[in-house]
């Protein structure tokens, strides 16, 4: 079967698509393959970034792309696709109206010398939250705004790597292939791919992130007026729901866009103060649900991209680090079992406790966050992250570990936080 399929696609021909106004070409790159996209006629955009005519854009394995046109266009695809089709049913008009409303708010904020709109996008997994974020950010930045993109989705970690949350000031539209330029991002360490692993820590770093964003708004008028777009993770039940309320409160959001879940919409309307505008919007028909393994491999790819780059290859460095030269910590002490506690009592917050750990075989293949902290005086939890390294080997005898690092030695700081995120460097 598989062989047949391959033979059939042995010589992929250029596929040309003619798109009418307000239609969208959706395609997915076959696993292991690449696709080149070229706009030959008209105007089109990918998630809010305009395509340059006759320029070839390359997308890697598994990428899902939607090319939308307001005016009609012709595009050519070269390479193997899992699927490629044109759809007329898109919620783009709705999204663009949303943008228009936000822009109105920015204008008002600018006129009144106040704070611009803070928008949070919520919804279950795989409804296109990050795509909508990208779209709204791109439209804002194309109008000369400088919105802040805050990503609270620790599962995808689009600003750094999975296991982190962060913020970034968007100054130019996202690159069609690589996404937003990640210069000087603000990153906080979480360490797990799901917020449920440590809700206390999750809420604490969200609060810290919000605090820093507020400080920045005080200093930077344009950033303040432009507001922010907050992406959240797809966990909308139970504690996940609670963390949405918490984030809304910490960031003092003005608008919440609920994608595709009426119940969540109703809950939020009821539980959030009346001055917060909660709206429900549909997801795009092009959004595909990703099964768990795909999500996991997307996470791995994200880490790989961090070290090896997306389009332009990066060349990470590998070197030995002496145990004596670093201090490794983990956030969260192992909780005591409930049986050890008297009835109806809670433990004294072990979740945000810093635990010093000795490097050992257990950290091999784990990604470590390098804290900006100069000393333990700066609380490591509340200090942002300079970058990441991955432990590729631990030599207990020599008391050294070998690390993969985006920058050459030495490591800039000595304090590091252990993450659950693993990365096997197979190159």
């Amino acid at each position, binding site marked *: 079967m598989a062989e047949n399929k391959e033979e059939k696609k042995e010589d992929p021909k250029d596929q040309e698509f003619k798109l009418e106004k*307000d239609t969208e070409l959706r395609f997915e790159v076959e696993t292991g393959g690449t696709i080149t996209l070229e706009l030959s006629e008209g105007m089109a*955009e990918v998630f809010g970034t*305009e395509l340059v005519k006759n320029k070839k854009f390359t997308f890697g394995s598994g990428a899902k792309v939607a090319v939308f046109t307001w005016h009609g266009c012709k595009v050519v695809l070269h390479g193997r696709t899992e699927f490629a089709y044109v759809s007329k*049913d898109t*919620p783009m*008009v*709705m999204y*663009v*109206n*949303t943008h*228009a*409303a936000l*822009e*109105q*708010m920015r*204008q*008002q904020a*600018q*006129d*009144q010398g*106040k704070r611009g709109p803070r928008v949070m996008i919520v919804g279950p997994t795989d409804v296109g939250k990050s795509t909508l974020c990208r779209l709204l950010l791109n439209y804002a930045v194309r*109008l*000369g705004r400088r919105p802040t993109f805050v990503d609270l989705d620790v599962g995808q970690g689009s600003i750094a790597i999975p296991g982190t949350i962060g913020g970034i000031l968007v100054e130019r539209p996202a690159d069609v292939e690589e996404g937003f330029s990640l210069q*000087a991002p*603000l990153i906080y360490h979480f360490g797990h791919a799901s917020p449920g692993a440590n809700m206390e820590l999750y809420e604490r770093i969200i609060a810290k992130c919000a605090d*820093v964003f507020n*400080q*920045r708004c005080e*200093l*930077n008028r*344009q950033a303040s007026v432009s507001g922010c777009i907050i992406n959240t993770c797809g966990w909308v*039940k*139970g504690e996940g729901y*609670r963390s949405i309320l918490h984030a809304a*409160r910490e960031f*003092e959001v003005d*608008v919440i*866009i609920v994608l*595709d879940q*009426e*119940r969540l*919409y109703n*809950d939020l*309307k009821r*539980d959030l*103060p*009346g*001055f917060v*505008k909660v*709206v*429900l919007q*549909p997801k795009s028909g092009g959004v595909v649900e990703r099964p768990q393994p795909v999500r996991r491999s997307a996470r791995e790819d994200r880490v790989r991209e961090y070290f090896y780059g997306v389009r332009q290859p990066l060349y990470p460095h590998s070197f030995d680090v002496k145990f004596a030269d670093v201090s490794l910590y983990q956030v969260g002490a192992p909780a005591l079992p409930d049986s050890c506690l*008297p009835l109806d009592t809670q433990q*004294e917050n072990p979740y945000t406790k810093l635990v010093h750990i000795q490097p050992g075989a257990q950290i091999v293949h784990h990604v470590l966050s390098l804290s900006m902290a*100069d*000393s333990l*005086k700066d*609380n490591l939890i509340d*200090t*942002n992250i300079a970058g990441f390294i991955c432990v590729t080997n631990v030599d207990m005898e020599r008391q050294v570990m070998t690390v993969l690092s985006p920058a050459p030695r030495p490591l800039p700081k000595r304090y590091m936080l252990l993450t659950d995120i693993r990365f096997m460097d197979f190159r």
Partner: protein
Amino acid sequence: MMDSYDIAEEEDYSPRMKAAHLSAQELLAHRNLDRTVPPRGGTKDYAPDGSLEQEEKLQGMYSLYRRMLAEERVNKIGNLSKAIWLEDQGLAEVTVDKGKFWHHIGHSNEGKKYLYPEEAVFLMETNAIEVYWNKLPLAIQQAYAMMLGNRVSMEQYQVYAHLSRLGYILIRHQSREHFSWYERQIQLDEYIPLKQRIKEGSSAQVRDWFPSNQHEEQTTSTSGEPDKTEEVHRDNPARQKSKEVKSASDSPVEHSTSNQTSRDSLPKGQTSRMEGRIEQSVEDEQMEIECNRKDKTEKQEEKGVDSLVTSSYECKWDFTNISIPNVGQDCDVSEIPIPCAELLPTGVQVNNVLKINTGAFSLNTKRGRKGKSNSEHLSKIVPNLRAEDDPRKVSRNWMEFKKLCGAKREMDMSDSPVAHLWQGEVTPLVRPSDATDMGAILSRLQVIQNISLEKECCSLPKPDRSLDIAYDVFLPDSHFKKSKPGRPNLRVCVQRFSEPAPDLALIVQLNQRSSPVPLLWAVVDNGDISFYSFTEADLPTDYHM
């Protein structure tokens, strides 16, 4: 039990014993010395029973010892370093350096190599160096007399030699006055009061995120933006229109704030305060309900201040004019209009009004099968309240909302049946709100605080004698560098057995100076050395109390 001492025996060996100068034959014989030592311990007998067997064992031991102890130190000249003892400086100057010891023993000064007395004597004892004084090679007995005692006490030397024999690398303790990297690491600078740290912390914790030219950016954006928007104003009638619509609905005061210049000058403050008052009067009715229980004027003042602060940051959005598409069932929206072109980036052009018929979008309207609603989780954040008390309904912005939520909690206290307990001067230590967990309550109840020795050291009387750490001790390591010894693995104080034990103040002082390196006290009892350490113990807190 034993033969009593018999004086007559003494005469047998009264001739003076001479120092053993080895003949050439004996020197050569020393090359083939047995290099093993009898192990310590082994089975001992309970008590002497006069048996031949016991006597033989004992005599065997004695003859072994006689042989072993009589052995002398013999080495090839080519393997021996040489040094000259400089009496006035109390140092030995190395003139011939042959051994490998220079890696971790000795120091240089002006191109000359020196050894401290303990280093020189130890090297002599380990058969590595000859020390000359007045052109005479010194015997170890002479070295003890001349080099030790005054500058380095016998006890100190014995500790040095004991640890050196085991392979540790010892250097004299280096005390440093300034805060080095590792002193910061050991948190000597923790004594800055907490408040100060928090203040510094908020800005210090975020590095590299604010671009360094943030001030520039700020000024350009404030000065640059108004011009730009004015241009747009003139050029774009559509935008003007939308603006008018907006201002019509807003209060006249707010309208005046749209003047850009007001931001930098006094009118801004005035206008925002006025704005606050107007809002207040509009919602007077709600306010009264809100403030029923509290002193009315006080509350109003508080609120006035609140809105003054908040209104300068937060906009009050009018979502009747700003329409964000919403397809929720409670919103009766049938179509999405074409937005103003001037709100859109170039290239984005909406062609058609979007009709919403329910089938168009795949909306997930499923209700959860289980009846458990998310509101249950919410109760932890916002208590369920009557509608008129609900901060969600009453507040108009986040600042107010947060304040009200906080106020709610305090009011709950005054509502409680034990509220009277807080009316007098003496109030309970624990508030109901503290009852989050046992640890919190216990910490509130703990009237007598434990002092941390490290931190409360200053409150102790001055130590009654001064004693310093003698040596920094490093584990055997071929990578050890004298010039860059790094942090020692141990530090050692030397204490004579007959001396009084160090007092608490001294222990604390020295522990602090040594922290985080463990400090050991070597107690020397007539050549026997035992090591002790003092550590501050944290008593565990018992949750079962």
